[in-house]
């Protein structure tokens, strides 16, 4: 039987506010346990929550970015359950009236020229507070509780079950990651848990209308784990069904060491969270002025920028996606372009997507940590465009810039000068070298004249070698042909 995979994601994005969503304590990562938990966070008797407007603003920004409906009145509810790292015995979240409803995000499905755009619908996004952390190691027979994270603001973004493969799920998660970091509502740091993904996965026979029973994979904190977990889960579910078993609705955990998912709890163990509006907090009212101000301050979004790059600069969908994968990358691109000239857009894109990205990956660096500046890349591209540098020489210059230069130091021209990397374009000089080469390689000359094309290439190679690669290969070709004619 042919099976179809159905995936919906719930993504917890930690918001970038300096203080917590309902208290003044800091949200900075990595502090001593419980040093960033104030009396509100530890839920002393009598304390009350006060909403951080910055968190609401993040919610508005996200809603605007995905073209969603913003609920002009949205409400905080209490989700009641007991756990030691949940100090109040309830989590303040939003249930029937979240801040954001609807909206969508476009992803690219497929590689290269075959890539197509697919729209993933977003169900809702709601504000809530994070819980603390239970530390099961280091305390023999006991559990340590760190409440630094308790009360950290989150925007939970819930998608419709619109994805049909792990690859699509990853593409969506990446697009969402790009968007929330782009608009600055989340720092996107997955190691620190700022962007955590839950995947609802089910399978059904191709052609069947109803969804299969889903299992939810909790807390995936890398795109690789997301892909591995979904692929494992899909195989497992298909096997189960083909073996005659039914899928039980359940929550599962992914173990990166074994690459398998394992059951956490079934639907029968599910809590009745007894949601009700938190009487300590008033309904949140969003007025048009506030929304308009936030809208006015919104940057151009990655989707719009992608379309613009393709339209105005003739870039491929693949290049446009790559250049807008991160706001800083897009800025690097546009900054470089402003100096190199729009006519060189493709060249700039190629360099950023090629040499720059490869070097960043190799050095495990981010574009913000790149040792070269847009001005230097622009100079480099200009020297390629005006024929001063061949691609090969340009790579050598780039190497110097990358390893020796700092962002403000070496200029491209200085490196070309100092290392003698300038492309030879003086045809007199090249001709002189060609004559020498021809004189020393009479055998090749004779072979060529006898009709052996290969001999010609050998001669070109000899000329390039003699010029230490600085000759313009096209020019060498032309001059050689003329001499041998």
């Amino acid at each position, binding site marked *: 039987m042919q099976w179809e995979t159905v995936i919906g994601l719930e993504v917890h994005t930690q918001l970038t506010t300096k203080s917590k969503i309902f208290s003044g304590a800091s949200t900075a990562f990595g502090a001593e346990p419980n040093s960033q938990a104030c009396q509100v966070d530890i839920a002393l*008797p009598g304390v009350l929550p006060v909403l951080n407007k910055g968190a609401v603003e993040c919610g508005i920004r996200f809603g605007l970015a995905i073209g969603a409906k913003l609920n002009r009145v949205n409400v905080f509810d209490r989700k009641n359950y007991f756990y030691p790292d949940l100090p109040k*015995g309830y989590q303040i979240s939003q249930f029937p009236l979240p801040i954001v409803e609807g909206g969508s995000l476009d992803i690219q499905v497929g590689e290269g020229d075959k890539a197509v755009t697919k729209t993933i619908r977003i169900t809702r996004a709601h504000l809530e507070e994070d819980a603390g952390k239970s530390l099961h190691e280091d305390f023999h027979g006991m559990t340590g509780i760190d409440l630094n994270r308790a009360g950290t603001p989150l925007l939970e973004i819930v998608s419709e079950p619109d994805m049909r493969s792990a690859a699509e799920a990853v593409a969506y998660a990446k697009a969402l990651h790009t968007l929330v970091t782009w608009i600055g509502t989340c720092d996107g740091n997955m190691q620190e848990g700022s962007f955590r993904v839950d995947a609802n996965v089910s399978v059904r026979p191709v052609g069947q209308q109803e969804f299969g029973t889903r299992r939810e994979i909790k807390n995936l904190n890398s795109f690789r784990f997301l892909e591995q977990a979904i692929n494992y889960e899909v195989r497992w579910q298909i096997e189960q069904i083909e073996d005659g078993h039914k899928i039980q609705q359940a929550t599962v955990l992914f173990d990166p060491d074994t690459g398998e998912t394992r059951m956490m709890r079934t639907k029968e163990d599910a809590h*009745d969270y*007894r949601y*009700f509006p938190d009487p300590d907090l008033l309904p949140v009212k969003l007025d048009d002025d506030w929304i308009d101000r936030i809208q006015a301050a919104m940057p151009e979004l990655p989707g719009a920028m992608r379309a613009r790059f393709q339209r105005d600069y003739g870039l491929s969908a693949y290049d446009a996606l790559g250049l807008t994968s991160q706001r800083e990358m897009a800025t690097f691109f546009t900054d470089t372009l402003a100096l190199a000239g729009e006519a060189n857009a493709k060249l700039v894109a190629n360099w950023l997507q090629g040499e720059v990205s490869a070097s960043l990956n190799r050095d495990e660096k981010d574009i913000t940590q790149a040792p070269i500046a847009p001005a230097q890349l622009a100079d480099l591209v200009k020297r390629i465009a005006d024929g001063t540098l061949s691609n090969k020489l340009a790579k050598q210059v780039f190497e110097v810039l990358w390893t020796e230069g700092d962002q403000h130091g070496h200029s491209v021209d200085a490196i070309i000068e100092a290392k003698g990397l300038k492309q030879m374009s003086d045809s007199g000089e090249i001709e002189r070298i060609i004559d020498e080469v021809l004189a020393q390689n009479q055998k090749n000359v004779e072979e060529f004249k006898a009709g052996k094309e290969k001999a010609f290439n050998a001669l070109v190679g000899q000329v390039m070698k003699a010029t230490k690669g600085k000759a313009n290969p096209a020019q060498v070709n032309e001059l050689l042909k003329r001499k041998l004619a």
Partner: protein
Amino acid sequence: MTYHSLKQLAGQLATGKASSVELCQDYLARIQARNPDLNAFITVDAERTLAEARAADALRAAGNAGPLTGVPIAHKDIFCAEGWLTTCGSKMLYNFVSPYDAHVIEQFKKAGMPTLGKTNMDEFAMGSSNETSYYGPVKNPWDMARVPGGSSGGSAACVAAGLAPAATGTDTGGSIRQPAALCGITGLKPTYGVVSRYGMIAFASSLDQGGPMARSAEDCALLLNVMAGFDGRDSTSLEREQEDYARDLAKPLNGLRIGLPKEFFGEGLTGDTAKAVQEAIAQFKKLGATTVEVSLPNSGLSVAAYYVIAPAEASSNLSRFDGVRYGYRTPDYTDLTDMYEKTRAEGFGSEVKRRILIGTYVLSHGYYDAYYIQAQKLRRLIAQDFAEAYRQCDVILGPTAPTTAFKLGEKADDPVQMYLSDIYTIAVNLAGLPGMSLPCGFDGQGLPIGLQLIGDYFSEARMLNVAHQYQLATDWHQRTPGGF
């Protein structure tokens, strides 16, 4: 000075006839002598009180005294006060020394008013007789075999017995007004949002409101001037101009329109209470007021709505008492669930457990719409009834409680009878209105009877004016229990 008004005490301090230290020493001595019988206080800490009194005297010496600087006050043990044991009447918090001050406590500290002690109360403010306190019941100074009412029973009893000139209370369904009535003192529950709830241990967040309990309306006005005010740490605190609640005390009552809800004067109201209330009405007429019959058709449903909403909120509010971070934790447990279950089974009393169960039930999947949503609808209807009534009158008048103080143990095993003690007061909390109780007579057994005034939103100054004018014409509020 036992039964002096706040104004008199402030006068003694201002003229140098007494120091705050001396006043506090006198009250502490009375507490030491009488509290063992009365059980109005859970915690007394003379050293701490006297330190605060010395600070108040220093403030006065430096010329920085406010109107009530140096006058001591007792605080209901629901208010977190830094360095004070704060139990909320529960075993669950038997060892909880608060590391911070409630907004109300801060306000009294700023006013230079020393804390005389923390008063006894029904556990987590759940009760109408003070019998649910883990620290034992409070006795009614008018009859030591009877209850003082609740939940602010300790506060009411200590003021009635002259162990403190004033006290703070909180009122979720009548917890200031009903004990004030049963102990023959004056108490006021302000409009919801006038007094900050920050640091006031939550019972039912949408109903809880702190307020003053004292010997007269005038004293309550002075205390409300201290307690009231916007607090950014309570999202339901109202940002309003600071007002002087004593500003209208002296106004005559000519032209005052008193609304008499026919539902309050039905068959439930009989005997001495009915008679005393009627006499009070006659007195108001003498003072120039007119009366008009009004109707609160949904008030009969208020107890039902209240016992859905209040337990629902309480069940969630009390979840933080889990033995993990502070307060009581069971000594023996096998795992986390066992720790939770035993801690909460041992730490909470039966009335608190009953309400947590009710609240959990009404919020459960499948019941929420039938109970909680319905109750919220009733709540809106009840508020609309009052709004309608205030088109015809300035203040609503009726009894505070259906009976005078009942005997200890009399209703302890009958929760529904106990819940009906608040039948006249609960609607006020559901609507968020201000209400007060003041003494208006005694029954055949010499027990005080309370008169309730209910005002429109933010009409505290007007209500206090009405009550004060009544108290100028009567002396019920000046009567004191024999033996104290």
